[in-house]
């Protein structure tokens, strides 16, 4: 425990280190001095070359890639493969032991077969991984404009060095961390870095201690969505903010996936059983008078018979099939084992922006005429009459359309798309308003051309409003001034309010009404904009009046408002509120998660109010108390829901954090930093939860990597986050996660069934050998036949169980308890070895006895016959009827017995497969809808027929054609399996908690 703490702290220290920069605090001249540059001249080419040599290219070191050969080796020698290798090695040893001691070689080629199986499955899984990781392609960005030697030129962004003067234009991806020297209405999209959905204004002023919050820094990998700037490069490559997060992410290692743990557990059980049984019989054989070498060969044979050779391939194929099924549902699985992890997930930490929400601002509400109207089209249609005659709406709509600089990208293809999908240029909120107005009025562009713009003042973060002046197309000679901006700013400039077509004084009553509406909307987490207009009197501002907006001067000194027209005494029109709305299916998905017993925590960099609003809208928080109350719930262990601000989180110690996550069901973490996300994930894991993290930004990457399963967004996700994740949602749809969880749970259930099926043939494979050893009968089942079962006929049926549909509604039960519910339990082993396997073995021995008896060796003759039977120098072994068999004649009979035993196992496995289809339900309820499974029964039978009857193939596998009626001998046992298992399941359903239930339900 102590070590953990130490590590975490050290780790946090490393993260804290990230923000150790002071370039934003010192004066700009100090920065120039420090990096030996000047804004006008920039660096010299020579100096740039030296710096480039010193710092390396301005590029992220690719995430520490595991060499391909290591990955291949991992597939070849990891987990189950190692057991098989041991098996192969043992076979090889046995081969040599036999070669030098016995003449009858059983193991001549078995080790080669085993080795090929491992190599083939190894390559197969490697190929699967390689295929999914290929989709990860990092994208290169274009050119960067730097000033060198006093001239600006375009260079490859990799060549940028510290001290370069960069020119950034709208739409550029910022190629390095910069300190801003000059900015023109610059806004950067920091969402990949901080998770804030809104573009952040950037300028030259130092506003915050925190480099992420301060205005005068812009970071590598973010986008300049608006405006332009000039800046000096202060960090490049891996030293950039994103670079360090990426490096940190690469350094995080996590433990095994739950399925890997389960498989290891399973391997351990099988190994222990194999070795214990092997040693037991090895010792027994010594007492029975066998030689040491014989005893060792017995030991090896028993161990090999116990290793489920085909299971490795089965598990890989099952996971692959599920991965393919999920890929069809737009869930790209990078790490196959992650599928099951998703199924055992107990906590999902969901990022808000881009995951739960669309990451697209949308108009949510209007407030005018003292009404709040929702913006969706349905609401509008139902109130269309009211709207048609509302003067106030017309005025607000006009203002919203005119006082808006966003436009649709002007190409016919773009314009022919539905409005929602059209590409636009401009500020996110302006685009939202544009799209909304386009949807309501039909043609904004036409309206704008009828009301041409005379002059405008652009929005700036400093003045927080924008205005424009238009000559209107409604035959009114007066110019129209329209203004939009932050409500408190607009409010100050207004003296009247337009209500129900009357312009009345904006008195305290109306101010109160406005106040109420504003609070209501902002409590919904919405961003509120206010609109106002003013008809400029014709006498003062005639038609050809020259408006002087002084835009250039305005940007340099925003507090200098020297217009030659009034900006006060306006008419207040109303409010429009915007929100980044939750995705359509998210609420449904959240509800499903909850019924599946999975807790959903929202972890976002956004503002608590916005976060809480979205959490409410999606059902992550079901508490109806106001957000302020929820914010106070953090230390109250009795509260169900709470909202935590990042600053509060910072002050919490480990114990408090544990309590926070243990006692609150619904938590929203707002304003969280990347390291806090990591802490949240670690805390959950410390409490024994299996954590899934969804995210798209670079800031999510460490948490994605640390989580038991990281889920990245395919469209909005950053490269770093995609690399750190295990699953990528190609359509960014949160609801796909639910499908993933369902598939993950299903695959666990089905793997269990698959293992039960595979293991059930272990006893019929082992028992012949034990009988051979103890009762000295001729060997009923050879090693080659065992491999034919494990790697031939059993493979497809075991895989086909992966297609089995769920028995009950698996999304209505809580997630698997990783500590108690295992893949292979003692009950599964007891069931599959002690019951199903025994019936199969019974069938096998019966058919063996019949084949022997019908050829002359009655059961009484068989006991103790082994030594004579296997002795080559006896050329006249007498059977029960006095016939004398040469060595080769009786070996042909023995191989026929092997074939018959093998066929029996196949035939009894029919119903074992049917029984494994369900664990509780009757077969008649479960149905036979799994066509793959039905086909696999046919397939294994056909394969058995081919092995038995095809010339050359049967010779190669030492099999012989069987008489027709021998095929029907196992049927009573086949039926017995079905009857027994139906009875067992009936007992389990009818008498839960009874001995049958306790000991046989796996």
């Amino acid at each position, binding site marked *: 425990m102590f070590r953990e703490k130490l*590590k975490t702290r050290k780790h946090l220290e490393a993260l804290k280190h990230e923000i150790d920069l002071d370039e934003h605090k010192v004066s700009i001249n100090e920065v120039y001095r420090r990096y030996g540059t000047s804004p006008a001249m920039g660096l010299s080419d020579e100096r740039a070359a030296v710096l480039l040599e010193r710092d390396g290219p301005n590029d992220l070191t690719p995430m520490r890639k595991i060499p391909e050969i290591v990955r291949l080796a991992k597939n070849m020698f990891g987990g189950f493969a190692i057991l098989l290798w041991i098996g192969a090695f043992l076979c090889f040893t046995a081969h040599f032991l036999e070669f030098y001691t016995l003449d009858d070689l059983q193991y001549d080629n078995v080790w080669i077969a085993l080795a090929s199986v491992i190599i083939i499955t190894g390559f197969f899984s490697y190929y699967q991984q390689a295929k999914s990781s290929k989709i990860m392609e990092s994208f290169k960005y274009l050119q960067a404009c730097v000033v060198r030697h006093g001239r600006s030129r375009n260079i490859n962004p990799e060549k940028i060095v510290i001290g370069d003067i960069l020119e950034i234009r709208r739409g550029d991806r910022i190629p390095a961390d910069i300190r801003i020297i000059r900015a023109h209405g610059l806004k950067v999209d920091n969402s990949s870095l901080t998770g804030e959905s809104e573009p952040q204004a950037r300028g030259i002023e130092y506003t915050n201690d925190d480099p992420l919050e301060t205005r005068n820094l812009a970071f590598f990998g973010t986008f300049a969505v608006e405006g332009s700037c000039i800046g000096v490069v202060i960090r490049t490559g891996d030293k950039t903010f994103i670079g360090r997060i990426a490096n940190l992410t690469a350094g995080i290692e996590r433990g095994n996936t739950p399925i890997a743990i389960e498989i290891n557990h399973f391997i351990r059980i099988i190994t222990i059983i194999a070795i214990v049984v092997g040693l037991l019989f090895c010792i027994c054989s010594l007492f029975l008078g066998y030689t040491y070498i014989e005893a060792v060969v017995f030991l090896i044979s028993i161990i090999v018979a116990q290793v489920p050779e085909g299971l490795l391939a089965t598990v890989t194929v099952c996971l692959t099939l599920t991965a393919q099924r999920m890929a069809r549902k737009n869930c790209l699985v990078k790490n196959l084992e992650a599928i099951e992890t998703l199924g055992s997930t107990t906590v999902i930490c969901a990022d808000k922006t881009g995951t739960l929400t669309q990451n697209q601002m949308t108009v949510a509400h209007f407030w005018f005429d003292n009404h709040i109207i929702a913006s969706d089209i349905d609401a509008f249609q139902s109130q269309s009459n009211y709207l048609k005659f509302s003067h106030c709406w017309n005025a607000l709509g006009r203002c919203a359309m005119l006082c808006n600089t966003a436009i649709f990208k002007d190409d016919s293809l773009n314009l022919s798309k539905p409005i929602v999908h059209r590409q636009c240029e401009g500020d996110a909120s302006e685009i939202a308003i544009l799209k909304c107005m386009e949807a309501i009025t039909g043609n904004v562009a036409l309206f704008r051309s009828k009301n041409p713009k005379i002059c405008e003042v652009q929005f700036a973060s400093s003045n927080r409003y924008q205005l424009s002046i238009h000559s209107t197309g409604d035959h009114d000679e007066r110019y129209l001034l329209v203004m939009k901006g932050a409500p408190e700013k607009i409010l100050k400039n207004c003296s009247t309010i337009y209500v129900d077509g009357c312009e009345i004084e904006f008195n305290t009553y109306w101010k109160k009404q406005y106040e109420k509406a504003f609070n209501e909307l902002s409590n919904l987490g919405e961003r509120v904009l206010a609109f106002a207009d003013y008809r400029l009197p014709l006498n003062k501002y005639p038609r050809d009046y020259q408006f002087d907006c002084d835009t250039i001067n305005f940007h340099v000194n925003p507090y200098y408002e020297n217009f030659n027209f009034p900006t006060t005494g306006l008419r207040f029109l109303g409010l429009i509120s915007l929100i980044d709305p939750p995705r359509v299916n998210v609420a449904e998905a959240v509800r499903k998660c909850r019924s599946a017993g999975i807790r959903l925590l929202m972890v976002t960099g956004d503002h608590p109010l916005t976060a809480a609003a979205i959490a409410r809208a999606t059902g992550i928080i079901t508490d109806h108390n106001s957000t302020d109350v929820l914010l106070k719930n953090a230390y109250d262990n009795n509260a169900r829901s709470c909202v935590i601000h990042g600053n509060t989180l910072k002050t919490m110690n480990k114990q408090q954090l544990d309590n926070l996550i243990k006692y609150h069901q619904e938590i929203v973490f707002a304003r969280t930093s990347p390291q806090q996300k990591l802490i949240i994930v670690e805390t959950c894991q410390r409490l024994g939860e299996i954590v899934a993290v969804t995210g798209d930004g670079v800031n999510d990457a460490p948490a994605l990597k640390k989580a038991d399963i990281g889920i990245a967004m395919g469209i909005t996700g950053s490269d770093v986050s995609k690399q750190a994740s295990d699953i990528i949602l190609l359509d960014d749809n949160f609801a796909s996660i639910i499908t993933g969880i369902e598939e993950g749970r299903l695959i666990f259930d089905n793997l269990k069934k698959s293992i039960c099926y595979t293991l059930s043939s272990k006893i019929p494979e082992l028992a012949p050998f034990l009988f051979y050893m103890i009762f000295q009968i001729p060997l009923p089942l050879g090693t080659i036949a065992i491999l034919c079962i494990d790697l031939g006929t059993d493979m497809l049926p075991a895989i086909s169980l992966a297609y089995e549909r769920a028995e009950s509604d698996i999304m209505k039960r809580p997630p698997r308890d990783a500590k108690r519910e295992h893949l292979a339990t003692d009950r599964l082993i007891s069931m599959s070895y002690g019951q199903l396997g025994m019936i199969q073995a019974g069938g096998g021995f019966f058919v063996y006895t019949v084949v022997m008896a019908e050829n002359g060796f009655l059961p009484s003759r068989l006991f103790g016959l082994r*030594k004579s039977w296997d002795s080559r120098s006896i050329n006249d072994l007498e059977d029960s009827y006095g016939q*004398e068999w*040469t060595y080769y004649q009786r070996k042909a009979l023995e191989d026929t017995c092997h074939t018959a035993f093998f066929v029996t196992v196949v035939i009894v496995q029919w119903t074992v497969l049917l029984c494994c289809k369900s664990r509780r339900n009757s077969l008649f309820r479960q149905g036979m809808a799994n066509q793959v499974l039905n086909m696999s029964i046919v397939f294994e039978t056909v394969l058995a027929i081919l092995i038995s009857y095809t010339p050359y193939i049967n*010779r190669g596998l030492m099999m012989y054609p069987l008489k027709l009626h021998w095929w029907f001998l196992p049927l009573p046992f086949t039926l017995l399996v079905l009857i027994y298992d139906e009875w067992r399941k009936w007992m389990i359903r009818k008498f839960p908690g009874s001995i049958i239930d306790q000991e046989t339900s796996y």
Partner: protein
Amino acid sequence: MHLKTNSKRRRSIGERCRDFWSTLHKKSHSLGNFIYNKEHHELFGRDGKRWSKLAAFYFCFYVVLGGMFCLYLSIFMIFLPINQPRYIGKDSQLTSRSNPFSPGLSIRPQVRLTLKDPLALIWLSSSDEKYPMNDNIEMYTKNLDDFLNNYNTNAQNSKNFTIHDVGDCNSNNHYGYTDGKPCILIKINKLIGFIPEVRKIHANNRHDDSECIGISNIPVRCMGENPFDQDMIGKIQYYSESESSDVCGSIDIKHFPYNGKDDRNNVYQTPYVWIQFRNITPHVLISVECRIFGANIFYDKIAQLGSIRFQLYLNKKI
């Protein structure tokens, strides 16, 4: 849950060892707890009551399963024919893709079973040697005595088999083993329904039976496997039912076919031929191959169909 936050940090060897021991201790403790839990008196996760319940369940299960197995098998056994197997001749597994329906040969004495060596070895040493090989001669004699016991029945039957002229090959003479002139008994394997056919002789017959031309029965002939063996083997005397010869032995086809048992009793007497090696070279291991020849007798040296191979070794010149 184990947290592996920072793997890059190097740990000292001491730390690693301490980790290893602590996990080992923890694991062994939990394993011990699993094997016997003192708190709940549980052995391997179950208490006495549950164990006995489980045992009872499995007892019932296996009794029922075993009962069904025995019932099913006994029903099946009732319908098996008594004197002959259900499948004989070409239907049985005596006939398969690698073995046509044809008998093998076998020899007596047959005493030592070796898994490794496909050839029987007959090892003779004189009594004055200090080797403990003397037992061999007694073993061989006893083995032959036991085999010939079957033929001393009083019941007269047309199929009874006797060789009147056996030369030295009798029990009193220790079948010639004490003299270094061993007698080997050669017989054809019993196969139900198999009747050997005498081979029609061709003019250009290259086979080894060329010297046995004119015998109206199935000829038996032994030779050294290689020219070297042939040189060492010396003189061979054949004692057959019809005659004794130094060229080849013979088996009369009137003894065939074998028809299985009669009411589960052995009534059939297998025809055989005595072969006596009269002057083999001592101190040399000699490989001998004996063959029978017939139109429907298939010869396969490896599978020992229609042939038998064995080795002779005489320790000292007597």
